[in-house]
C-alpha cells in the first residue's frame, strides 16, 4: 500500500508540470480572445483534464475504453458545451434572471472550459495511447504560443496590444516582455519534450537551456534587436524607395499592392490647435503631381511651379515659398507629426506653410518628428463661387504647364458636355464647372482597388472613357485632366486623407496605410490650392478600418511628450521602477554567478598542475570527478567512492585504479608518502583521454559550456 502511494506521488510531479505548461499556453491564447472568466475557465478545464487523464487513464473504467470512443466523447462534450453556452446567451429568461453581463460571463466560462477540457483530454489520451500523440501535443502548445506572438512579425512590437500597451505605458521595452514569452515557450516546449522520455536528464538540460536563454537576453541587451525591414512600399501614397527618387514607378500600379497591411500605422498627428474640417476629412499633403511629362502628370521639375510645397526635410525650420491667401478665412493650426515609416517629403495638414524639426521623443518608434504649421481652410464652397482661377504671379508659361493634359480630345468633349447643363448664372464660374465634373465622377465612378488600366498608355483616359472603375489615382487624374481641358489650372495632390471621425474627440490622429490618397486641386485666385475631391458613391471595397483608438492615443501621448505625460508615465512607473532595477540587478547577479562559476570550474580543472604535492591526490581526483560530472556522471548521495568508480569505469576504466590510489592516500596511514605528482598526472591524462574517446561530441560540447558542472561533484 505504501509503495502504491509513493508511486502515484512520483507521477504527480511531472503531471502537474505538464498540466501547468499546457494551461499556460491556453492562458496566453485565451487572453486575447475572451474575457477573464473565459481565460480562467480554460485554465481550470485544462488542469482538470490533465489530472483526470494522467491519474485515471490507467485504471478502470477509463482503461477499458477505446481511444476512438474517448475522442468521440470529447467531441460530444465540446458540442454539447457550446450549445449550452449559446443557449445561456441566447435565452431571455437567463439574462433576465441574472444580469446580461453575468450570463455572458458564464457562457464564456462554459465555452472555454469545454474547449480546453475536451482538447486537453484528447491530446493527453493520444499522448498516452499512441506514438504520435506526444508530437501532436507539443505541436499544439507550440502553435498556441506562435499564434499569440505571430502579430509581432516585421517588428510590429506594439501588437498584440495587451502586451504592447502594458509595456509601453510603463516605459518598458515590449521586446523584453516578448522575449520572456519566447523563452517561456522554448522552456515549456523543451520540458514537454524531455518529459516524454527521461526525467533524470531534465535538470541537466534545463541548466543548459536556461543558459542559452540568458545569453540571448545578454546579446539583446548588448547589441539590441535586429532592425526590422523598413516598410517603404505601403502603396497608394506615391512614396518611393530611398535613393530611387528620380525613377518613379507608375503611380497607377500602386493599386496592385495587396491590402494586407492596410491597417499598418504610418504616422501619428497631434493637434496643438483645435480644428475640425468642414468636408469631413483631414487632408495631409505631401506633394503634388502637376507637370505633364508627355504621358502623365509628374512631380514638377521647374523652380517656378508648386512653390507652396516643401520638398525636403531640414534640421531646422522650412517655410513654404508661397503662402496660401485669404488668411482671414483660414485658421492657423499647429500639429506635431511623428512618422512611423520613412517618407520622401514631409507632409502636413492642408495647407502646410512651414515645418519645424522637433526632437524625437522615442527613436525606436518614430522615424521623424516635426511640427507642421498650417493654414487650414474654414471657408465653405460658396466662398469659392465666382472666383477666378490661377495666380496673378504665375507667368504665362507656368499657367500653361498647369493646363497641359494628354493629347486626347475626348477630355474636353466630355468636360464641355458636363458643363452644358449648368444654370446660366454659373455657366462661366470655374468652381461650378469643377463641381459639375466632380459630381459626374461621384455618380458614375466605381471605386475599386482592382483595375484594368494600369498598363494602358493613359490610364486615366482608359478609366474615364472605359468602365469608370478605379481608385483615387484614376479619379484624381481624370478630374484634373477634365479641369485642365476647360481651362481650370489643376494638379493632383498626394498625401493622406483621414476621416474626421477617426479623431474621436481626442487630439491625436493615427494615419494608417489605408489612408494614403490622391486628390485633384484647383488654384483659385486670392485663395490658393483648393481640394475638389471626387467621392464615388459606388465602391467595391470596404475601406473602413479599425481606428485603433488605444494605439492612437498611446502614440499621441508618446509623441506629445508633455510634462503631464511624463508625470503620468512616472506615476505608472513608480511601481515598476523597482521591477526595472530588479531586472538590472538580476542581470548583474546572474552574470557574476556565471563568471564565478566558470572561474571555479577552470580553476578546479587546472589547479592540480601547480598544486603542492601534499594535496595532490585531492586536487587531481577532484579534477577528474569534475570531468565526469560534466558529462553527467556523478556520485549519488550515499554512494561510496568505490561504487561510483565501478559505475564510471564503463566510460573511463582507469578511474578504478585512481580511486584506489586516492582512497589509499586519504584514508590510509598518514605518514606513508605515497603521493607522487607524476602518478597523478598520468592518471589524469589517461582518464581525460578515455572520457573524450567514449563520449559523443554534443556531450563534450555541453561539458565545456556548462558552467555549473562542478557543482554535482561530490
Amino acid at each position, binding site marked *: 500500500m505504501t509503495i502504491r502511494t509513493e508511486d502515484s506521488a512520483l507521477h504527480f510531479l511531472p503531471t502537474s508540470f505538464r498540466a501547468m505548461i499546457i494551461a499556460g499556453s491556453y492562458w496566453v491564447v485565451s487572453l486575447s480572445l475572451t474575457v477573464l472568466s473565459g481565460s480562467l475557465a480554460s485554465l481550470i478545464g485544462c488542469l482538470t483534464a490533465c489530472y483526470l487523464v494522467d491519474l485515471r487513464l490507467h485504471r478502470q473504467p477509463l482503461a477499458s475504453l477505446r481511444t476512438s470512443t474517448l475522442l468521440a466523447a470529447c467531441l460530444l462534450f465540446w458540442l454539447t458545451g457550446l450549445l449550452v453556452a449559446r443557449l445561456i446567451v441566447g435565452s431571455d429568461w437567463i439574462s433576465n434572471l441574472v444580469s446580461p453581463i453575468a450570463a455572458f460571463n458564464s457562457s464564456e466560462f462554459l465555452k472555454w472550459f469545454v474547449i480546453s477540457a475536451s482538447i486537453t483530454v484528447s491530446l493527453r489520451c493520444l499522448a498516452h495511447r499512441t506514438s504520435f500523440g506526444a508530437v501532436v501535443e507539443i505541436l499544439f502548445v507550440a502553435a498556441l504560443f506562435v499564434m499569440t506572438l505571430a502579430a509581432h512579425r516585421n517588428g510590429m512590437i506594439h501588437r498584440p496590444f495587451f502586451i504592447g500597451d502594458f509595456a509601453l505605458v510603463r516605459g518598458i521595452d515590449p521586446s523584453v516582455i516578448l522575449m520572456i514569452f519566447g523563452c517561456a515557450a522554448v522552456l515549456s516546449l523543451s520540458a514537454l519534450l524531455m518529459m516524454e522520455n527521461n526525467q533524470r536528464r531534465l535538470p541537466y538540460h534545463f541548466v543548459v537551456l536556461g543558459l542559452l536563454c540568458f545569453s540571448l537576453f545578454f546579446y539583446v541587451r548588448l547589441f539590441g534587436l535586429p532592425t526590422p525591414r523598413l516598410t517603404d512600399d505601403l502603396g497608394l501614397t506615391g512614396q518611393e524607395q530611398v535613393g530611387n527618387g528620380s525613377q518613379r514607378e507608375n503611380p497607377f500600379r500602386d493599386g496592385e499592392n495587396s491590402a494586407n497591411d492596410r491597417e499598418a500605422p504610418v504616422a501619428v498627428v497631434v493637434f496643438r490647435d483645435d480644428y475640425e474640417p468642414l468636408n469631413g476629412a483631414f487632408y495631409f499633403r505631401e506633394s503634388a503631381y502637376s507637370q505633364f511629362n508627355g504621358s502623365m502628370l509628374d512631380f514638377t521639375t521647374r523652380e517656378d511651379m508648386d512653390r507652396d510645397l516643401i520638398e525636403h526635410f531640414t534640421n531646422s525650420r522650412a517655410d513654404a515659398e508661397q503662402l496660401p491667401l485669404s488668411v482671414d478665412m483660414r485658421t492657423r493650426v499647429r500639429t506635431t507629426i511623428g512618422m512611423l515609416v520613412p517618407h520622401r517629403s514631409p507632409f502636413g495638414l492642408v495647407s502646410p506653410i512651414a515645418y519645424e524639426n522637433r526632437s524625437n521623443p522615442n527613436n525606436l518608434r518614430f522615424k521623424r518628428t516635426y511640427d507642421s504649421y498650417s493654414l487650414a481652410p474654414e471657408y465653405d464652397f460658396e466662398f469659392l463661387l465666382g472666383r477666378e482661377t490661377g495666380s496673378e504671379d504665375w507667368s504665362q508659361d507656368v499657367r500653361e504647364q498647369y493646363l497641359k493634359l494628354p493629347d486626347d480630345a475626348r477630355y474636353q468633349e466630355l468636360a464641355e458636355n458636363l458643363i452644358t447643363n449648368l444654370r446660366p448664372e454659373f455657366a462661366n464660374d470655374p468652381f461650378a464647372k469643377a463641381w459639375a465634373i466632380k459630381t459626374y465622377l461621384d455618380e458614375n465612378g466605381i471605386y475599386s482597388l482592382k483595375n484594368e488600366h494600369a498598363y494602358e498608355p493613359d490610364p486615366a483616359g482608359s478609366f474615364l472613357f472605359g468602365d469608370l472603375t478605379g481608385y483615387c489615382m484614376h479619379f484624381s487624374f481624370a478630374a484634373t485632366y477634365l479641369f485642365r481641358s476647360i481651362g481650370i489650372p489643376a494638379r493632383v495632390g498626394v498625401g493622406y486623407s483621414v476621416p474626421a471621425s477617426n479623431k474621436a474627440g481626442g487630439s491625436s490622429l493615427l494615419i494608417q496605410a489605408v489612408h494614403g490618397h490622391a486628390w485633384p486641386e484647383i488654384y483659385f485666385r486670392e485663395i490658393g490650392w483648393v481640394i475638389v475631391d471626387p467621392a464615388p458613391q459606388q465602391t467595391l471595397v470596404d475601406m473602413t478600418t479599425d481606428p485603433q483608438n488605444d494605439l492612437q492615443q498611446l502614440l499621441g501621448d508618446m509623441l506629445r511628450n508633455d510634462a503631464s505625460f511624463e508625470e503620468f508615465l512616472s506615476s505608472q512607473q513608480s511601481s515598476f521602477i523597482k521591477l526595472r532595477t530588479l531586472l538590472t540587478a538580476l542581470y548583474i547577479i546572474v552574470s557574476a554567478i556565471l563568471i564565478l562559476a566558470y572561474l571555479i570550474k577552470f580553476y578546479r580543472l587546472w589547479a592540480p598542475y601547480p598544486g603542492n604535492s601534499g*594535496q595532490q591526490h*585531492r586536487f587531481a*581526483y*577532484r579534477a577528474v*570527478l569534475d570531468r565526469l560530472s560534466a558529462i553527467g556522471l556523478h*556520485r549519488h*548521495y*550515499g*554512494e*561510496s*567512492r*568505490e561504487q*561510483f568508480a565501478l559505475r564510471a569505469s564503463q566510460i573511463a*576504466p*582507469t578511474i*578504478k*585504479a585512481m580511486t*584506489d*590510489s*586516492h*582512497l*589509499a592516500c*586519504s*584514508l*590510509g*596511514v598518514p605518514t*606513508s*608518502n*605515497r603521493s*607522487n605528482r*607524476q*602518478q597523478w598526472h*598520468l*592518471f589524469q591524462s*589517461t582518464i581525460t583521454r*578515455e572520457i573524450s574517446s567514449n563520449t559523443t561530441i554534443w556531450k563534450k560540447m555541453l561539458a565545456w559550456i556548462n558552467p555549473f558542472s562542478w557543482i554535482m561533484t*561530490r
Partner: protein
Amino acid sequence: MTSEITAQVTEIQSVSGSDAHAAANADLSTSVAVLRTLMDTLKRQVLGRDDVIELVIIALISDGHILLEDFPGSGKTTLAKALGEAIVNGSSTDEFIVPFRRIQFTPDLLPSDVTGVPVFDSNSNAFHFRHGPLFAHVVLADEINRTSPKVQSAMLEAMGEKQVTVDNVTYTLDDLFFVIATQNPLDLVGTYPLPTPQLDRFLFKITMDHIDRKSELDVLETYKERRDFGSSLVTVTRDQVLKARQQIDSYVHISPAVKTALVDISRNIREDDRVLQGNSTRSMVLLLPALQVSAALRGRDYVSAEDIQLLISRVLGHRIELAPGVSDMEKVLADNMRAPMDQLARSTLTG
C-alpha cells in the same frame, strides 16, 4: 590499457615508497596469504558459500563469533568442521585442545555438558577436571536456541571471556576459540530464543539462503571426491592464524573519518523512530577489527567505505530492535547509513 596504467603507477610508487612502508606491506601480504589459503581450503569443501566463508574468516581473525540462521542440511557442520580441520595445532602445548567440537543443544543439556566437569579419580583420590567440548579451536553450537537459558549463559560466558569457571576454578580456553552457533529460523516450538543482549556476543548473524542451482549440482557431482579429500587439503597452523590476527590489527589503518562515520551511523540509528533500541557501543568496537580484516582481504592497508557496506548489516542486524510494525531492517540501516557514508566519501576530497 588499464593494466598498463596500473603497471606504470606501481613502478612510480615503488620508486617513491619508503622502506618502513614496504616492510609493513610485506608482513601484511604474508598474513593475507594465510587467510587466502584458509579460504581456498574451505571453498573446496563447501561449495556455493563463498560469501559466508569470507565472513567466517573475517570473524575468526577479528576474534568474534558467528550465528548462522539456516535450514538443516545446508552445510553448517561441513563448514565448521572444515574450518576446524584446516587449522592444525602446530606448536600448541595444551593437549586438551582439539581442532573441532560440535555440541548439539537440547532442552535437557546441562552447563557441565558444555564446559566440562570435575570427576573424582579414585586412583589419585582427587578431582580431575574433565574438559568439555568448549576446549577446541572451532566449536559448532548447533541449534543454540533449543537449550535452557542456563546452558546458554554458560556458553555465552565462555564466548565473551574465553574462559570457563567450574566450581570456582577458572579454566582458560584457547586463544583461537571460535564459535559457530546455529539456529533454525522457522521451527521455534519449544525453543528459548536468545535475547538481544545475548545476541550481542555474536559478531555476525548470517542468514543463509539456499545455494544456487549450479553450486547445488556441483555439490552432488563432487560429494565423493570431497569425502575423500582427507589429508590432501592444505592446512595452516594455529600460530599462523594468530600472527595474522595480530599483524592485520597493527598494519591496517583505520582513518578518523571512518570512525566518525561509524559513530554517526550508530547515532542515526538510535535516533530513528523506527528503532526501539539501537546498537551498543561495543558493537562498534567489535566491528573495527572485522573492518580491518575485510580491508586486508581486499588487498588494502586502510579501511574504506566498501568494508563498512559489506559488514555493517551483518554486525548490526541482530543488535537492533525495531519498533513494532517495522520489519525491513535493511531499509532502516540503509536510510541511516546514507548521510554518514556520503560524509565519508566527501571527506576524502575536503581533507
